[in-house]
């Protein structure tokens, strides 16, 4: 069993998809590298930090991508974003059974600023196109860099997000917030606080993450299969979906908007012994919080 956290992007793809089934589009041998990094004296990567392609999941054709958190924090540049968008387009054209996105990203790659920003927006629209075509989009988040920035927004355009406790999903990183408003606002070195605020368990409790699994690639694989099966036939975004989400978000704001700290939210939800939450194993955690968590899908 492999730790999802410790695997690199290629290893995750190899372990989540059926063994040997993944065919990479525009592989490293094609050498399509970033055109913008050389002028900043930064190294390139032959896949520009993302693997895109098509494989099998229990025999069904699933298109997928995995961002390499080790390269530039998995951040999206021109080529990286175009690879994602192209794969998503192809998934629609070839009527994929599902799309699986293994996300690990700081968001827009600052070295490519404007190109990255537009690219993230194109990826968001492309994800929504896939859903509109009736194809489930499942996101896996469990890498050490988390899923931040524009990719944190894009992730929430998918049908389902699967996270491990180690994963994080947010918009701005704690360092950015601390730089803007000081350590009292958000102490970026308080790891426990960072994970209470943006980590998988908290997101699961709030209803922004629909499945919480242990940190191993088998668990992510199984969760992906379950998520796809549960979404078949209703992947497209409907008005009812949006209204339900709107209600969830409005209620969240009303009920938890005055909370000073995430544990206060867990208390307000009625979870017994909230201080124990961070210590629980994934399975125990999900069982214990089932009656209390929001956005149950």
């Amino acid at each position, binding site marked *: 069993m492999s730790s999802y956290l410790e695997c690199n992007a290629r290893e995750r793809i190899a372990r989540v998809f059926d063994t040997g089934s993944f065919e990479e589009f525009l592989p490293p041998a094609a050498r399509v590298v970033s055109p913008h990094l050389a002028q900043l*004296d930064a*190294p390139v990567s*032959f896949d520009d930090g993302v693997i895109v392609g098509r494989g099998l999941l229990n025999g069904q054709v699933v298109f997928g991508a995995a961002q390499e958190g080790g*390269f530039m924090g998995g951040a999206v540049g021109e080529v990286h974003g175009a690879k994602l968008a192209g794969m998503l387009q192809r998934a629609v054209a070839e009527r994929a059974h599902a799309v699986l996105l293994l996300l690990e990203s700081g968001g827009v790659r600052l070295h490519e600023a404007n190109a990255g920003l537009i690219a993230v927006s194109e990826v968001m629209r492309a994800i929504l196109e896939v859903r509109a075509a009736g194809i489930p989009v499942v996101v896996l988040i469990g890498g050490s860099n988390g899923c931040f920035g524009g990719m944190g927004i894009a992730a929430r355009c998918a049908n389902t997000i699967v996270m491990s406790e180690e994963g994080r999903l947010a918009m701005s990183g704690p360092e950015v917030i601390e730089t803007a408003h000081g350590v009292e606002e958000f102490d970026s070195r308080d790891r426990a606080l960072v994970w209470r605020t943006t980590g998988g368990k908290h997101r699961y409790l709030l209803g922004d993450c629909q499945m919480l699994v242990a940190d191993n690639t088998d668990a992510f694989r199984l969760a992906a299969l379950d998520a796809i099966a549960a979404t078949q036939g209703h992947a497209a975004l409907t008005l009812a979906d949006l209204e339900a989400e709107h209600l969830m978000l409005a209620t969240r704001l009303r009920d938890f908007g005055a909370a000073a700290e995430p544990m206060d939210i867990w208390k307000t939800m009625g979870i017994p012994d909230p201080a124990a939450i961070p210590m629980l194993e994934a399975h125990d955690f999900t069982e214990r919080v089932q009656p209390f968590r929001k956005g149950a899908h």
Partner: protein
Amino acid sequence: METLNYRFEHGRRQLAAMPQLVGVVSSGNLEVLIEAAPLNGACEIEIRTAANGFGATWQAVMSDFHERWQLIDARICINDMGATPAVVSLRLDQAAETMTGGLP
């Protein structure tokens, strides 16, 4: 960034057809792209590195690599972000292993 090129002759081991990639371009690490290429029997290695001024070290590591593996008609391309010689050798060995199915 610095680009370094090496060419070695007199090898004997063939590579499998499919290009392979090993490693990640993260701090202290490197990626190695290895593929079969018609090079009149030579093994060509191109390195793009973020750590400038280590030409002599790279030369030594590459020569050792060629002595170990003796690859022919092989193109190896490296994107390096300051890996130590030990890590470089490790990745090169991993790459060569996947392409020859064997040990040095």
